């Protein structure tokens, strides 16, 4: 790929992520409001298109977001991380999209100023928002909605470590936790992507399934 084409691709990806970020902000504005599914889907569609154009460029664009790391950026980063891991693993598109949507909703429910809520605490309010129908919302993607809500339902009701370790559940908890660690309580500033990955690799293993930790930290080649 020529330098000019790469530059154009990178710009296209940045543009998509800027627009996605604009669509995330209203989702965070009123955390009690019913979830805006269409807005969520637009965010994911932009993220997916960006990754299809360039996995590495998307990762660079996420890492290069202005270092304020406000809740919207962190929510977008959580969504990207979930989608990135599942795409690399070769998970089917429908599941990848639903899982990424669940991550976005959980991040929007749990991440604020400061570390925010863990997945197990953020899942229930996220589910409440997602089950509540927005007035005028068209009912034309039930399979996606069921899978997204099923993920949140399972995380919200898991009582034990054993239940939290079932299937793909650890991924959501880990991704949420990473965005909490990005801005720990009492710390000025935030961790960079590189610091975050090193910290995750060192600290997360005792608390999270090592296989998922490795899958998350491995990142796009």
């Amino acid at each position, binding site marked *: 790929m020529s330098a000019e084409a790469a530059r154009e691709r990178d*710009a296209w990806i*940045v543009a998509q992520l800027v*627009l996605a970020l604009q669509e995330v902000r209203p989702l965070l504005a009123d955390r009690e409001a019913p979830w805006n599914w269409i807005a969520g889907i637009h965010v994911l569609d932009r993220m997916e298109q960006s990754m299809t154009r360039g996995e590495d460029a998307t990762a660079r664009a996420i890492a290069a977001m202005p270092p304020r790391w406000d809740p919207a950026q962190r929510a977008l980063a959580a969504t990207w991380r979930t989608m990135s891991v599942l795409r690399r693993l070769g998970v089917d598109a429908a599941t990848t*999209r639903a899982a990424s949507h669940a991550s976005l909703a959980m991040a929007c429910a749990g991440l604020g100023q400061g570390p925010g809520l863990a997945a197990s605490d953020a899942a229930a309010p996220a589910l409440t928002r997602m089950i509540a129908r927005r007035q005028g919302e068209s009912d*034309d993607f039930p399979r996606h909605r*069921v899978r997204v809500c099923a*993920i949140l339902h399972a995380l919200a009701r898991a009582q034990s470590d054993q239940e939290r370790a079932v299937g793909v559940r650890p991924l959501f908890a880990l991704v949420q936790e990473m965005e909490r660690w990005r801005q720990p309580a009492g710390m000025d500033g935030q961790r960079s992507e590189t610091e975050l990955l090193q910290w995750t690799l060192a600290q997360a293993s005792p608390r999270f399934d090592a296989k998922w930790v490795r899958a998350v930290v491995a990142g796009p080649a």
Partner: protein
Amino acid sequence: MTERNRSQDKEFQHNALALLTNFDALVRAMAADVPDTAALAAQVAQNWRALADRTLQLEPAGVLANGQLLLAAKPECGSWVPDAFAAGLRGLTALRDVQPQDMTALAHELAILTPTPHGTDRLHTWLWTDSLGGFRVELAPLAPTDAEQRALQDALLAPPLPPREPPPIALSAEESAPLAATCNDPVFWLAEELSLVLTHAEMQPDMPAHDLARRLRHAAAAAFDRRLLAMLGALAQGKNDYARFARAAFEDEPIGEAIGSRAPLDPAGLQQIGQIIEGLSPHIGGGVLRGLLARATEHGEVLDAPIVALATTLGVERFVGLVELAILAPISRSAFGRVIARLTGGAEWLAEMLPQVTPSEAIGIIHGLPVNLLLRLTKPIHQVLLRAQPRERSQVAQLLLGSGNLGCLAALAAVLRETEAKGWELRTIRAIYQTLLLNNVEPEPLLKLMQSSRVAVEARLVMLDEIARSHIAQEGLRWRMAELLDPPAIQERLAQLRKHGVQP
């Protein structure tokens, strides 16, 4: 291109054209609110399933199959194609089990598609969210909006993205494969989603019971595991409306057979199967049992014990009623007989059942029975033989002769006499005479039968040959006044045997 390839290509085009014509008609019918489109949808599904290459490509000008434009977009037909293309739809591949309702759903979305940004965005979202069952969809991004163009211009003015440090570790294929398998496990998702809709009733419209039933059947047929039994058990015992709807939906899915043929048969599995049989309809319960019997047929008697355990809890009467012999695969009837034979009161049930079923069904049942039981069932078997066709009689005779039991052999001789050897294959008559005479079972009656003028000449000749080879040859070949009245063929054979003995 060979003649054969040309012919196949022509046939494919013909079939694809029929599909597209019907599909376009379905879209137009739905746009016109035609009340009943079920038959057309079924026809389209059948057309699509039958296509050698089930992929269609979309271009603004029309729909292509195998690279050839077969449906041109015009106002009178295919008018939906340009808008579907604008929504990002590029290709549709029907899966093997695509259903009429999938066709209806797709046609509905295309029928309501409007040539507006809202309309194309709506279809794009619908396809993107995997709302279309039964298809693999190729979806392209929507055309860029003004906002996207502006954002792109801004991004082009920004400094280039900095390079990224390589990831600190790499994930091997051995590490990623099990994680991917976990994420792609349909049973895991089915369990998660069922748990959701059973807990949150407001989500139930998003997973209709018939959709659940279909997915359960698919999962059960693909790779059965214990989680499916747990889900089915929960639905079988469930008291709420959703569980009731799901139970009703199972009536349309051959899920019973899938359970019976694949479910684990350890004590826990048997208990769950028992719950499913108790909680679901007789139709499904029967399917489970028939699936189990098919499995027992394949794997032999090693599987009889768990099935007997299950049948014991049901009781022989309920077991027999659920299985429905008339629809049980003929190959499974032997296992069915073996299981009944081991149930308390099973022999009495068999004695009562055999005269009521067709000879063919009866043969399947008695095929697996032990000798001691065959002996107890000689009366009903006698009745079966009287009603049976020559070929069926040969099958029963083979079973009874193979038992080597004198009582069974005597029962066979009695039927042969009673029928005066009419309706028997000659090879079977020969086998019966050979075995009975060898075992010295009723030699006198056999001799009399051979001498009877009421027996067909061909049968008498076979009997005569076997008697001549046996220990009663001398008696059989002795001259009798009555033989003067015998047909010439008998007289000639007697003379020949007396002069030269039995020819090898």
